[in-house]
């Protein structure tokens, strides 16, 4: 299978004394969705920034269709890779349509403004993520979920082959998280490759075929979601107990955290309380 991205022994540090990550190797195939899990501050965002050619690697290489990404002009990289950063404040209230239209930049000359065809492509991207209703609103007046979708639409207007999403579901409510993941899933089945970082192991089962867990400055585990997202790996990564089981109701694996302390439910529910919490309670008494 043709590999779009090929990462070999990648390493990065801001300050030579403190390495962010090193010796990371993986490759991304067409239509593949790779989910990067890992604790806060481990360097997931930095890795994604390196893949987007925003930070230069300190060691190793990233090859884009067989060419070193550093040797390519930003413009050419932007035609293949769409980057969706974490949400941040925008000072000037551009309307959503103008904001999405900015995604056409890599396809336009230095002195050009977007034309009718670019407008049509931006509108198509807006329809694809389903934010037509808010297309004329200023980005300062829409919700966090809508803003996330607007940023995804902007990246889609780039017509990329790879979409890099930095924690696309953070700051979103439960419904919006699932909606964003559904859109990512649909884009992947339509031929886009996706790399995203997430804080929720469940998201890996929802959308991804491959998962990488980042720990101690490298990939601790990398492979199929069912093989990588295990009770042992999650315990080691996050230091919490979880159960992973197959749910026949939703036809996929689910990841359920254990209760840390004693059960605080009363009344008729109390009888249903067994397992760790109950044992803990009993042993205290």
């Amino acid at each position, binding site marked *: 299978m043709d590999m779009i991205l090929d990462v070999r022994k990648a390493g990065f540090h801001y300050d030579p004394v403190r390495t962010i990550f090193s010796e990371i190797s993986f490759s991304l195939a067409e239509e593949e969705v790779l989910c990067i899990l890992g604790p806060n501050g481990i360097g997931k965002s930095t890795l994604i920034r390196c893949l987007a050619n925003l930070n230069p690697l300190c060691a190793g290489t990233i090859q884009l269709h067989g060419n070193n990404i550093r040797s390519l002009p930003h413009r050419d990289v932007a035609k293949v890779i769409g980057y969706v950063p974490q949400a941040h404040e925008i000072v000037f209230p551009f309307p959503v349509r103008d904001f999405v239209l900015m*995604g056409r930049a890599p396809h336009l000359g230095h002195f050009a403004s977007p034309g009718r065809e670019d407008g049509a492509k931006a509108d198509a991207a807006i329809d694809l993520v389903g934010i037509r209703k808010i297309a004329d609103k200023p980005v300062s007046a829409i919700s966090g979920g809508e803003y996330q979708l607007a940023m995804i639409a902007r990246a889609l207007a780039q017509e990329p082959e790879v979409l890099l999403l930095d924690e696309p579901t953070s700051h979103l409510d439960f419904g919006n998280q699932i909606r964003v993941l559904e859109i990512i899933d649909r884009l992947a089945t339509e031929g886009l490759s996706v790399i995203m970082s997430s804080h929720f192991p469940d998201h890996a089962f929802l959308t991804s075929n491959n998962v990488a867990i980042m720990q101690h400055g490298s990939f601790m585990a990398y492979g199929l979601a069912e093989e990588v997202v295990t009770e042992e790996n999650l315990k080691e990564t996050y230091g919490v107990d979880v159960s992973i089981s197959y749910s026949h109701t939703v036809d996929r694996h689910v990841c359920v955290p254990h209760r840390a302390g004693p059960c605080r439910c009363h009344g008729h529910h109390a009888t249903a309380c067994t397992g760790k919490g109950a044992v803990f309670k009993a042993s205290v008494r």
Partner: protein
Amino acid sequence: MSETPAERSDARRVLCKRAGRIWDVLFVPAAKPVLIYCLLPVLIFLSLFIGRYDVNPVHVVLLLAAPVVNLLPENVLHIYPVWSAAEANVIYQIRLPRVIAAVLVGAGLSMAGAAYQGLFKNPLVSPDILGVASGAGFGAALAILLSWNMAMIQISAFAFGILAVTVTYLISRMYRTTPTLVLVLSGIIVGAFFTALISLTKYVADPYEKLPAITFWLMGSLASVRYEDIVMIVPFFLAAAIILLLIRWRINILAVGDDEARALGIDTKRMAQTIIVCSTLITASAVCIAGIIGWVGLVVPHLGRMLVGPDYTRLLPVCLLLGACYLLIIDDLARMLTNAEIPLGILTAIIGAPFFAYLLGRRSVGWI
């Protein structure tokens, strides 16, 4: 007249409402561009026959049309001088250069301010954020102190303005992180340094002759602008303005964020350099013929944003026109309000500040 306070406040509310409605009618989307584009020619014309010396408005039109019309063969159409020599002198030697300078300086400063606000992602930035005005001010003050002639004062102002921004840029290059923030900080450093040098120059200057000259120069005026000055700065102005207009759509992307702009394939470093060079050329040339004129570059972009929104493809041309109109009005007031000329730098703030405060209360700007 016995009027209760309640009635009075009612009357005021009605008046306010009516004023608001007039504003809304004036600025309906379709009327906006037409209105903005028509305003400048009307103001230019008005500015030419406003002043101490009365000139017949018909004569103004004939005077302006004559050089063009008389290019045609004499038997087709010809304008014969019906005006007096004094009228021709007032229009061509005094008012026209002044009007042209006001248009250039106002348009230029507004565009430079708008471009900087996008580059620094900050609506409170003005064209002298990188120290160009303090540098140019020192250049002029030094030249006056050393009794150099007018041309040398201008050249010195221009050179020191460019020097100040160059130093600011070099200081910011010493640190590699968060380029725009460091740029603003080094601009403050360089600005403070040159402001101190201006004070030093004033302190050692002869208090009867040179100190007032320096002080008046720093307050800004278009009273002594000549054609030679305009010819000198026009190439810089045109080149910088055209480049800014050409890259204006991309300033939008830069205004959203540096990382995102780079991820969208934009060479942010080169783009920042382009904007800084263009804005500096414009501001330095404006300061060297007109002295330091604050507020225009800060207020006009906001006015533009309220009218056409934040998109630079529409905002930059509108800033160009509005800036020209704004400075024309200010300059007309400067020469008409009192017997003596009021320095421009004073009027731009005295009129600009309350007007800006009113606008902020009246229209939502988006970023507050």
